[in-house]
């Protein structure tokens, strides 16, 4: 049977197998633009893939986008599927996307925590962490967004393996985190790192592990504010912009703090919408509107990064 992304239902939640199959179809439909990069395997040995959008060149400056590091935030994986298709279909059509990909590569990781995602489909819809086993504890998993080497083990992360915000035994202990770290370090030319979460409608920049302002705060705040203006223009979804510590709470070991500290200036974290008081159970008919508005914000940040090389 001929495979086509045209028949894919973007307005539905899908299991890991279907998402991975969609990625294969997308790559097959755009062989000159997209490659599937196997960045390693998860704790339970599932492959982890990033889609690399590239028009050529060697080690071009790149933008990283990941979704689903907290597995129960299903609208993020679903939005990332839609966004992958949007980038692919807009290349050669939308001058902005075409120009962006003429200068930079985009890496998009749709399911950053595959074990957790499968677990949310099979055992516990509310699962947020990885599925690694900890010796001496009957509780499994680490919060992968408390496991990065940025103020690791500090305030806003739990040392209790049973907690949903358990930071893990040491920084980068989770193979899912380590795989991303290795790719970012090995590449060495990422200019932006954007992590997509869901809940509360926020666009955040570093820091989370400390409430100290970053040196680039003023620039990142203004980029974030402009990005949210774009996002809001579609459905008037209300967002707040600020540093993690100032607009939510102090949280150590987060990914964008680590990326900022290694020199990736344009580090942001999205918290997508929950306009209907459904939390992680956002109805599937809101996937496309969420993805559409997120894309506008994301595109603004990407364009800004392209226009402001450093």
């Amino acid at each position: 049977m001929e495979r086509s992304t045209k028949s894919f239902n973007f307005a539905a939640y899908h299991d890991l197998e279907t998402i991975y199959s969609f990625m294969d179809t997308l790559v097959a439909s755009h062989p000159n633009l997209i490659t599937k990069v196997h960045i390693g395997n998860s704790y339970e040995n599932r492959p982890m893939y990033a889609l690399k959008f590239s028009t050529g060149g060697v080690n071009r400056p790149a933008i990283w986008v990941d979704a689903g590091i907290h597995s129960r935030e299903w609208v993020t994986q679903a939005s990332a599927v839609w966004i992958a298709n949007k980038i692919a279909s807009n290349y050669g059509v939308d001058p902005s996307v075409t120009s962006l990909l003429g200068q930079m590569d985009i890496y998009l990781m749709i399911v950053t925590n595959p074990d957790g995602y499968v677990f949310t489909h099979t055992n516990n819809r509310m699962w947020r962490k990885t599925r690694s086993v900890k010796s001496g504890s009957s509780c499994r998993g680490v919060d992968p967004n408390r496991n990065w080497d940025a103020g690791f083990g500090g305030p806003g992360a739990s040392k209790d393996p049973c907690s949903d915000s358990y930071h893990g035994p040491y920084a980068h202990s989770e193979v899912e985190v380590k795989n991303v770290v290795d790719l970012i370090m090995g590449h060495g030319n990422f200019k932006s790192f954007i992590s997509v979460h869901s809940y509360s409608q926020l666009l955040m920049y570093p820091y989370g592990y400390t409430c100290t302002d970053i040196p680039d705060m003023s620039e990142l705040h203004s980029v974030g504010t402009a990005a949210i203006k774009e996002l809001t223009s579609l459905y008037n979804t209300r967002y707040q912009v600020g540093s993690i510590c100032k607009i939510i709470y102090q949280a150590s070991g987060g990914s964008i703090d680590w990326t900022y500290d290694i020199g990736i200036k344009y580090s942001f974290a999205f918290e997508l919408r929950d306009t209907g008081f459904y939390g992680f159970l956002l109805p599937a008919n809101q996937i496309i509107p969420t993805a559409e508005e997120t894309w506008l914000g994301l595109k603004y940040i990407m364009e800004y990064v392209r226009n402001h090389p450093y």
Partner: protein
Amino acid sequence: KELFNGDQVLRIHVESEDHIQALKELEEDVDSGLDFWTHGFSTERPIDIRVPHSSLSAVKDFLKKNNVPFNVMINNVQELLDREKSEMVSNAK
């Protein structure tokens, strides 16, 4: 498969430092199995907590005793999950 029958999501509106202290107490009570959907306590934004059915009355009593305002945002989490599941099955078909 873990079920969430009768679990509710409470939306809590923090208005004072006393409320924050009360919530910190709740957070430390790991035996209640509370699932904080939003993190960090401030008067700026509401806090959403999934409360297992078995802990509901104790948690509500605690909040009332400490005058912490709240409302029930999701009445039965499992109902939403069942709806989500049946939608997925239908979409898969």
